[in-house]
């Protein structure tokens, strides 16, 4: 059958898959009506129904079904000069709920993935502290620990869209975000273990990777809700997410969540490191540049339908689904428009609603088969509403790169295909 052929060929390009998917959608619909005797998948005994499958331990570390082989992170090669200092994207269009599976969390490295034996890893606290300390991983696991769910968004997420619609797919336009449950020790406990001197106003986490990533973080945030985490979604951090130890800086730009965390220095002034001067500063139209723009403002995107996830079922019931998040707390409401922002309906938020975590929304409609211009607009508990891209450009120009949380528009055509567009 057509859909089996497609699913089992891992080498097919995504685009071929999409086209084929569209075709099978139609074929399957026709099949239901055409087989008077019934669907052979029901009337005939299938192999999986007759023969034994693999036993336990055939996959000691479980992996997704072979029919999900297309659900992977993807990169855009021309974005960066080398893969070791680059980024790939979470396949949002293939996911549901609010938790991102560990293997699908987007990656952003500045010097490749450091491979560190946890027995060889150390965390040093130094600078304006009473006692500079060194911790092993085992030491850290003797502190009281907490479990918290947070989104992590790269400040450059949607950065390629400042000048207009560029990339066709929410994986590429919005996929530098993920949301997992972290297990770790509050940074406050670790800093207090060393004793913060009264003039200690800033901390600087540092990574053990080949970029020795560093950022300045104000003490107030460090003592508020930051975690030194060693688990994600219950298992050890993945190497590409900073194994064995990373910093969690809830609601703030992903670059600050230093991976392979090996040192935290306490100081009285910020350090003005490369990633907070030359990068991760927001150039405005005036030529001025904002620095220390830490918070990720409220943002949302419709993940389905979207360019990589076209409508394959024709008109009738349609689930419009998407995700929303805010660095300022909980999402309290998401509105969805199907006419390019002229009229809005409040979507249904479903699943846990946690501060600085991803939220899932749905709008269930009866699609009449006509063109749609789908948008979503998130509101957080501070009362802030996601702005339009036009509003953002009016305030900042087109060269800010970072912090593009403007409303996204998808054009759904009558044949179910979807394109990234901007509207009047």
């Amino acid at each position, binding site marked *: 059958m057509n859909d089996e052929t497609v699913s089992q060929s891992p080498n097919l390009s995504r685009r071929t898959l999409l086209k084929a998917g569209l075709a099978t959608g139609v074929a399957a619909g026709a099949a239901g009506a055409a087989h008077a005797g019934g669907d052979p998948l029901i009337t005939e005994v299938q192999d999986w129904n007759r023969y034994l499958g693999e036993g336990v331990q055939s996959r000691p570390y479980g992996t997704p079904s072979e029919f999900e082989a297309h659900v992977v992170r993807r990169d855009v090669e021309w974005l960066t000069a080398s893969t070791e200092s680059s980024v790939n994207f979470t396949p949002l269009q293939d996911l549901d709920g609010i938790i991102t599976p560990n293997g699908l969390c987007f990656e952003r490295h500045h010097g490749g993935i450091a491979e560190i034996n946890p027995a060889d890893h150390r965390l040093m606290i130094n600078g304006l502290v009473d006692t500079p300390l060194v911790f092993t991983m085992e030491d850290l696991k003797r502190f009281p620990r907490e479990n918290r769910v947070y989104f992590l968004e790269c400040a450059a997420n949607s950065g390629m869209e400042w000048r207009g619609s560029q990339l066709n797919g929410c994986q590429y336009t919005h996929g530098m975000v993920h949301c997992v449950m972290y297990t770790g020790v509050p940074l406050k406990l670790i800093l207090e273990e060393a004793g913060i001197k009264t003039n200690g106003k800033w901390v600087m986490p540092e990574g053990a990777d080949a970029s020795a990533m560093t950022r300045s973080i104000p003490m107030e945030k460090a003592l508020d809700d930051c975690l030194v985490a060693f688990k994600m979604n219950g298992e050890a951090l993945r190497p590409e997410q900073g194994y064995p130890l990373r910093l969690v800086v809830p609601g703030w730009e992903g670059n600050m969540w230093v991976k392979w965390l090996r040192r935290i220095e306490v100081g009285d002034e910020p350090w003005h490191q490369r990633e907070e001067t030359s990068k991760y500063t927001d*150039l405005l139209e005036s030529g*001025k540049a904002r620095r220390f723009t830490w918070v990720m403002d409220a943002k949302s995107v419709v993940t389905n339908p979207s360019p990589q996830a076209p409508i394959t079922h024709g008109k009738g019931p349609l689930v419009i689904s998407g995700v929303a998040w805010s660095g300022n707390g909980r999402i309290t409401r998401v509105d969805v428009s199907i006419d390019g922002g002229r009229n809005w309906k409040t979507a249904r938020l479903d699943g846990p609603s946690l501060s600085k975590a991803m939220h899932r929304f749905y709008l269930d409609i009866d699609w009449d088969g006509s063109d749609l211009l789908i948008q979503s607009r998130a509101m957080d508990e501070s009362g802030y509403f996601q702005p339009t891209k036009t509003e953002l450009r009016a305030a900042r120009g087109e060269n800010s790169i970072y912090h593009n949380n403007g409303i996204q528009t998808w054009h759904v055509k009558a044949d179910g295909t979807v394109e990234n567009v901007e509207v009047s």
Partner: protein
Amino acid sequence: MSKFLKVLSLGVSLAALPVLAGGALAGDPDKGAKVFKKCAACHAVGENAKNKVGPQLNEVFGRAAGTLEDYKYSKAMISAGDDGLVWDDATLTTYLEKPRAMIKGTKMAFAGLKKEKDLENVIAYLATFSSSAPAAEEQQGSAEPEPAEGEVQTAEAASAPAPVSATRDGGVFGLGRVATEDEIAAWDIDVRPDGMGLPQGSGTVADGEVLYTDNCAVCHGDFGEGVGRWPVLAGGQDTLTDERPEKTIGSYWPYLSTVYDYVRRAMPYGNARSLSDDDVYAITAYLLYLNDIVEDEDFELSNENFTEIRLPNEENFIADDRAEEPHYADKGDPCMSDCKDSPVEITMHAQILDVTPGSVDDNDAAGMGGVD
């Protein structure tokens, strides 16, 4: 006789090469894999290996120098190939020991492998990716292998479960141990705009030019203009309000300390922490020179005069004032119906219609906001 052949007359004539190459390789490919980490920032091998800063090295054995079609070699490498240089055990050994001594003008910034064992091992490793290469010698004396330094440490760490967890007097939980001065000095190398953290030392523009050419120019260009998509380091003054601003050290970066700090901690890319403190002063001085911030080639930058240098764009950085943008003030219920006067028109379509990896033309796609 061309230059490389003169260098090669370390006793090896071209005619003798194939014979020599026919013998088994002395190195250990597994150990070579470790050595290759020094090369991996610029060179790829194995399945799907592509050209990076340097050419991919699959099938390098038996390949004439400078002949991969889709890689842009230095003129020197191409003419070496034209003159008959073919890569094999002997030629690779000579080249990798001191690349610029053999091929003056090669783009490869790597200084060379000093240890003979490293050379043998990395060549044996490369040979595993070349079908025409001789096999590695059976490794003898496996009862008493000669472990590399790193391996000794790992072995000790594995056998002695020493520093698993420690407790001490003081603190809230009494966990961890006191960091030693040497440990802090080894990791705390950060430098602030006020000069805090600057090590003692100095370097001149002239010294910096040599170091920069050897270590930096392969990616950043001879004049800081950037090669391909690698960062541009110089120029771009007065472009920040242009449609395509050029953000460089001279045009954008607020503080010189960031240059020193970053080069010292993370550069050269793929070989971090390999420059001395004086080297970093010299390279920083040269970057000032490339940006016309100092004009004298004899200028010497040191911890004494460092904080006297100010970068031109320092004053143009402002605090996060997003909250003052009009749409932030717009709290309260937004419009829900008839929010626009007329039916909505599409004003822009995605420019890149097919972003499937591998299907985008790099050059056509370049020029948009990147994420470096």
